[in-house]
């Protein structure tokens, strides 16, 4: 099962809450936390959305201690991940991505499941920044393909992403960005950093960070939280181009 979780996911990751300076929301008791890219639970606004094998469930959590199941939606088969993106939910299955509108929070409405297969296939973690999406397409394992790549898409029309450029990588997993630096977990080459100040021309930053086997990252305040096969590795990213190892937590 663990293997399936690691290998068979379409991973959608949105880092709109990743800005380093979150001081104001920090002290707010209504603060929402931040998950990684393999999540099956996602909170947006006063709603908790969960996915299981076939269904999306909507819980009203206005009263935090008393969630109320509001809706159950049949989505498809082999659902793996959920990711809120603005007023949309991206739901990843082994074979496709479903996009739901949650303008009406308790009543998700299917907008599209027709994303081009070469854009968001299974095993393709994605992060979105404004109107640009970054995805890693991993080709080893059960996912098919010939070359693992980092791909950049124009997502101005969210239901019709257009690939703009690609960059070859090793064995990529999760990814996340902090400002103009994109972090990509690569099991072969370690943690890769890309300068994305010009998002359609990502350039590899010369670093050699390989302290473990990276699965996913959450850039959070000045810390890069990395999920590895042995636990967690934390880096100080005060200078986001030069992560400094803080510690391993195993």
């Amino acid at each position, binding site marked *: 099962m663990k293997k399936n979780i690691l290998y068979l996911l379409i991973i959608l990751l949105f880092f709109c809450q990743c800005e380093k300076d979150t001081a104001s929301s920090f002290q707010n008791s209504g603060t*929402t*936390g931040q998950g990684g890219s393999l999540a099956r639970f996602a909170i947006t606004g006063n709603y908790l959305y969960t996915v299981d094998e076939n269904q999306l*469930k909507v819980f009203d959590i206005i009263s935090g201690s*008393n*969630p109320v*199941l509001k809706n159950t939606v049949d989505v498809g088969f082999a659902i793996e991940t959920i990711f809120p993106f603005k007023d949309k939910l991206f739901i990843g299955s082994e074979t496709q991505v479903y996009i739901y509108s949650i303008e009406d929070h308790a009543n998700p409405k299917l907008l599209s499941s027709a994303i081009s297969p070469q854009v968001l296939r299974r095993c393709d973690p994605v992060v979105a920044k404004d109107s640009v999406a970054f995805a890693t397409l991993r080709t080893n394992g059960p996912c098919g393909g010939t070359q693992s790549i980092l791909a950049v898409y124009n997502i101005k029309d969210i239901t019709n992403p257009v690939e703009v450029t690609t960059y070859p990588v090793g064995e990529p997993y999760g990814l996340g960005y902090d400002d103009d630096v994109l972090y990509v977990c690569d099991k072969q080459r370690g943690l890769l950093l890309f300068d994305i100040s010009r998002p359609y021309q990502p350039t590899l930053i010369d670093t050699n960070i390989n302290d473990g086997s990276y699965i996913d990252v959450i850039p959070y305040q000045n810390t890069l939280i990395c*999920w590895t096969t042995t*636990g*967690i590795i934390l880096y*100080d990213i005060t200078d986001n181009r030069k992560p400094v190892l803080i510690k391993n937590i195993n």
Partner: protein
Amino acid sequence: MRRIILFFIASIYLFSCDPRQTDLSGEVDAYVPVYGSLSDIHDIAMEPQKSTLKPGKIYAYKNYIFQNDLYTGVHIIDNSNQKNPVKIAFLKLPLSTDIAIKGDYLYANNYVDLTVFDISDPVHAQLVKRVANVFPGPDQDFPPFRGTYFQCPDKSKGIVVRWEMQHIKIPNCRR
């Protein structure tokens, strides 16, 4: 109806006679049921910090970092001192895989239930609500995928709480 059932049983039997792809030790990859009881599943507690066994999903909230330990619970890490974050406790929560947090309430799955914990004092997280039977449990008879060998469940051993891929000798079922 009985015929259909008989036919079904017969086909399972036939499938189970397929020559198997075994390695030198005579073992194959097969799904094995993991058993549990409701009292095990509901055995929730705060424990001292401990080593991570099966690192799972990560989550950040305020000055804390959480990491699920697959099927056993959630490690709680205090990150107030960003130069030296430390594990401070372990929330024992059997069969949990996912968490999300808002406003000091942690939501997590506990087998087929949604559980809610008040984490305003994370070391003393308190279970405040259980919403029962909102998530599907594993199939009691078959593993989640077809075309695989598996060990037939023995119902006298309890509820099948999950299916685990193992390398075993002579699994007695195939689907």
